């Protein structure tokens, strides 16, 4: 079966070589005669190209974490630190509302794909009310600047500010790792339940890269 395919392949090669010669007579006098390859026992070649690589871990791209976020129009200028996931599966946050947390399992600002998610407490016991308490007043069209650990500043333009009841927060969309490159700023708002120590809503600002 494959011998037949290989044979067809070889004759096809000859036919192509002949066609090439025929279409430009005398144009390639130095071209080797095709008979040499045709008489050798041909080894088959794969019908499809399959990627092959050494079974070693691919070099992981090191993220460049954001270190500062500035939204001048609402007087926000806060340091940002990497955070992960806290017990219960919620996004981890710095205790101090004046410090933003960057979700380190998602995209960093230099990544080619995925949303950059930065969140901070709106308030916390023993601390002053945080800068993101003014997130709800961030007008669409304003610029938010994110500085990364390499000192690069990226600009994002605010598209929307939305209140979501916490249970309805579209986490898959906001924390998307592909198909989007937005800056997502999250804090809390709405009614506070002093029994649970939690706000009813999340306030979410979405901003798109300006370049």
């Amino acid at each position, binding site marked *: *079966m*494959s*011998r037949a*395919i*290989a044979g067809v392949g070889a004759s096809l090669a000859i036919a192509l070589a002949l066609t090439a010669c025929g279409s430009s007579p005398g144009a390639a006098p130095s071209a080797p005669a095709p008979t040499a390859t045709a008489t050798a026992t041909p*080894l*088959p070649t*794969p*019908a*499809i*190209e*399959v*990627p*092959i*690589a*050494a*079974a*070693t*871990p*691919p070099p*992981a791209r090191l993220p460049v974490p954001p270190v500062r976020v500035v939204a001048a129009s609402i007087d926000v200028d806060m340091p940002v630190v990497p955070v*992960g*996931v806290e017990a219960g*599966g*919620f*996004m981890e*946050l710095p205790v101090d*509302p004046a410090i933003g947390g960057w979700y380190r*399992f998602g995209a960093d600002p230099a990544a080619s794909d995925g949303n950059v998610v930065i*969140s*901070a*407490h*709106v*308030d*916390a*016991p*023993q*601390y*002053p*009310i945080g800068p*993101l*308490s003014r997130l709800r007043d961030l007008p669409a069209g304003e610029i938010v600047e994110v500085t990364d650990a390499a000192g690069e500043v990226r600009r994002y333009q605010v598209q929307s500010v939305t209140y979501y009841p*916490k*249970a309805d*927060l579209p*986490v898959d969309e906001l*924390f998307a*790792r*592909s*198909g989007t490159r937005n800056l997502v700023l*999250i*804090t*809390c*708002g709405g*009614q*506070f339940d002093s029994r649970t*120590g*939690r*706000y009813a809503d*999340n306030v979410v600002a979405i901003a798109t890269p300006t370049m």
Partner: protein
Amino acid sequence: MRKKVLAGIAAGIVAALSVGIPATAATNGNAVLSVLHGIPDTPVDVYVNGALTLDDFQPGDLAGPLDLPAGAYEVALTATDATDDSAPVLGPVTLTLEAGKNYTAVAHLNASGSPTVTPYVNDTSPTAAGEGRLTVRHDAAAPAVDVLAGGTAVISDLANPEEATLNLPAGTIQASVAAAGTTDPVIGPAPVDVQEGVLTIAYAWGSLEDDNLELAVQTITGLHSAPDGVNSGTGGQLAQRDLFLQSMWAIGGLVVAAAVAASALVVVRSRARR
């Protein structure tokens, strides 16, 4: 080298074609297949259903992932100078691939050192936010082993061709492989990077007797989940301040209303006196 460059280009093209879909996710009705070569010192050609599919496949190399229609495939391994699969060195074996599943077929030595093929199903179900998954497969001509992380056994008595899977917080673990019930490493210790949302599969292959035990690693990305939510306010001061300001406005309004009413009354009374 050239092959790897080509492979990289091919992978790039595949990635470019499947924007928005993880490269390793099975499309509808298809299965995903990777092939690992874990037989020492024996380059082979791989024939699938009689057609040459992998040319000059080297030990320690991983081919794929290939998106294939579900069904049965006949796989044969031949010497690299074979012109067809009529005289296989291993097989033919039949691999039955189910739609939506992700497989790795491993050519390896069994416990007693004879070549064999084991098809494994890779657990590509979503990982919890902040976690990665580690699967360990024993594909070496060696007795049962324990897998140790930081000196303690996390997988016990794993025999060829068994596998074990752990879901772990993302991070780097110092892993080693030791004969079952012992702690003296036959492989490692080596750092194993458990990446968030990534299935890392570690294969022990080769032969203990021939002193060529090796570790192969395959990664499958895109299993991540988003966090359940964001609890970004625990003090309640903002709500209190809002409430306070609202009530000040309300009180302010009442004061104004009262003032208006009072002055109206004064006007009415002064008119009445006239």
